[in-house]
């Protein structure tokens, strides 16, 4: 076993592979940071370059882009309030709030260290517990998926902001938005009002950019004119690096979040978004230190979300490598990469090409460390962006949002949809309705509905089918608990509603 790992290290550390890893990570960071360019799109764009590369170099390049994309999604989230990825929405809520308090550098270091910790944790779990996680994920059928989505939505809705009613209104609005378009089972058109634009449904990137990023600029426009966005103070590495005591203080979050991330990442179709929201919701629910700061710049929330979304990469890769099932869009792209090089991911690959499997393990380990160095070096550079005149800075964010929304389908209609969501987002924020549950519900709505309908089909229409397995019972009980718990724990949350 040691020989295999030593050989894998030797292969991955070859100059061409190190260059590929660095280029992939840089590209991934850029793709993840820009709204409208998802990590999966970043990986797809690199796929065509891998035809001529050796299999190991190709995978090192793509792994770099994958992990870089997940890590980079949080850079613009913290600095500008633009989520590069749906999984970065909790990071926008807490990280951007910290940045607005003049603690951008601190938030960036917390995010980076937690991301890398989560990533490394999941790689070690992937190496040690691949068979266990794969078996557990295989037990998930439609009822379990439905229960998982209900848990994710209830955790976020129940704890988002000062009013549960507003959280649930936002959540159900998101679930409604997810039903717009063609029904995946019957082919029926729903709420399309005979428009072609809505036939394919509402793209969550368009909604996300409008609800979060553009509406943020409208909210900021209410403030008196300022020449610059905010503080860009950087007191050097030692001055900004979070103390070890911070991680000691939140040790439970640091352990729980990567576990959630790895397990949820291993579930096909779940991925980094549910992982980040679940871990964030759990951190908010069980917060002992400064729970009132959630939504206003809670370091614990930022840590939970970042640990979990990066940890999901290891979980996704585990079931890809052991079962050949892609756990996320991006790992689905990696299946294509395997096929380009004449391989089929799955149980047989471990015995036929152990060099590739162990090489991928080592590449993921080293890429996480490389990302720590690359992003850590660039933090000061990212912060300098705040020196742009505020008016131009806002215009630049608006233009980036337009590019992101237009680039998805090359469609002007998406721009108008984004504009509509930005106005809705502005009024939601103005009247204290949180936008995060709406976005999560929009992302998960399809999965929730299809899982429910498939469960009912399997059980012949009996709702008891939804609680037919211990896993779904536990998950649904968790959902119920997450709704009921805040009512007793924080009764003031319902004041005035």
């Amino acid at each position: 076993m040691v020989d295999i790992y030593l050989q894998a290290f030797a292969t991955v550390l070859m100059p061409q592979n190190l260059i590929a890893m660095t280029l992939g990570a840089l590209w991934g960071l850029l793709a993840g940071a820009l709204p409208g360019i998802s990590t999966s799109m970043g990986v797809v764009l690199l796929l065509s370059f891998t035809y001529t590369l050796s299999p190991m170099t190709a995978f090192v390049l793509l792994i770099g882009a994958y992990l870089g994309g997940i890590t980079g999604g949080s850079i613009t989230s913290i600095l500008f309030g633009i989520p590069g990825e749906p999984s970065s929405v909790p990071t926008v809520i807490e990280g951007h709030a910290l940045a607005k308090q003049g603690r951008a550098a601190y938030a960036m270091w917390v995010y980076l260290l937690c991301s890398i910790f989560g990533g490394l944790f999941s790689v070690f779990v992937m190496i040690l517990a691949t068979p266990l996680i794969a078996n557990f994920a295989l037990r998930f059928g439609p009822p379990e998926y439905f229960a998982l989505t209900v848990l994710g939505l209830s955790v976020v809705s129940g704890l988002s902001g000062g009013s549960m009613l507003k959280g649930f209104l936002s959540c159900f609005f998101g679930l409604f938005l997810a039903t717009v378009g063609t029904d995946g089972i019957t082919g029926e058109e729903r709420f399309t009002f005979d428009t072609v634009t809505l036939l394919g449904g509402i793209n969550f990137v368009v909604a996300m950019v409008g609800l979060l990023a553009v509406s943020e600029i409208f909210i900021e426009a209410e403030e008196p004119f300022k020449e610059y966005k905010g503080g860009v103070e950087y007191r050097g590495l030692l001055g900004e690096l979070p103390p070890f005591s911070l991680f000691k203080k939140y040790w439970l979050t640091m352990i729980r979040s990567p576990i959630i991330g790895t397990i949820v990442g291993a579930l096909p179709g779940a991925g980094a978004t549910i992982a980040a929201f679940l871990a964030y919701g759990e951190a908010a629910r069980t917060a002992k230190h400064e729970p009132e700061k959630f939504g206003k710049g809670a370091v614990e929330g930022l840590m939970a979300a970042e640990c979990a979304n990066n940890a999901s990469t290891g979980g996704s890769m585990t079931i890809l490598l052991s079962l050949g099932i892609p756990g996320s869009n991006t790992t689905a792209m990696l299946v294509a990469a395997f096929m380009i090089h004449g391989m089929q991911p799955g149980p047989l690959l471990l015995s036929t090409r152990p060099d590739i499997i162990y090489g991928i393990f080592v590449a993921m380990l080293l890429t996480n460390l490389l990302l720590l160095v690359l992003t850590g070096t660039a933090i000061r550079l990212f912060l300098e962006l705040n020196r742009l005149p505020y008016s131009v800075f806002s215009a630049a964010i608006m233009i980036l949002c337009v590019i992101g929304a237009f680039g998805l389908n090359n469609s002007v209609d998406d721009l108008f949809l984004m504009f509509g969501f930005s106005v809705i987002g502005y009024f939601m924020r103005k009247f204290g309705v949180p936008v995060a549950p709406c976005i999560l519900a929009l992302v998960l709505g399809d999965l929730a509905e299809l899982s429910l309908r498939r469960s009912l089909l399997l059980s012949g229409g009996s709702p008891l089918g939804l609680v037919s397995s211990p896993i779904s019972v536990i998950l649904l009980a968790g959902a119920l608990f997450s709704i009921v718990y805040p009512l007793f724990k924080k009764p003031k949350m319902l004041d005035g509603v």
Partner: protein
Amino acid sequence: MKKGEIVFFAICVAFFGFMFYEGLDLAGQGRAGEIGSGLWPLLAIGASALFSVALLISSVKKYRGEGTAEDRTPEAIAEQKRQRITVTLSVVTFLIYMVVIPWLGFIFSTLVYIPVFALALGERRKSVLLISPFLLTGIIVAVFAKFITIPFPKGVGIFAEFSRLFY
């Protein structure tokens, strides 16, 4: 603000009420033994409508309980007016930008949008208003259109010809 909240939740009630009415057409559609296309959206809209009604009632109660008398200083009224004007201008300029972008193409519309939006936010420095549109547009076209090759709106007629020189 309280009046605004009442109006907001009243609009929510009306919107979800209308959508529920529209969704009733979907009820019962689907194959035998299947719950159909309508149940899930009706559940989501119905719950949204109920929450909106609850929030509307709560807002009205709060408004009545706290009374309508608001001791606002002339400065506060002027500040609120300034906020409304700035936000309205930002929203309108953004909307116009999206309306003209398919016709004028990305470069021309962005060159005009940046200074107009900056002016709407209160920017008055001439150097910023004159230099930033060219600098920002140039960087964005170079990075996104040339390097990453993301599709940009080209515009029509002469504007499309101009855009093709760059992307």
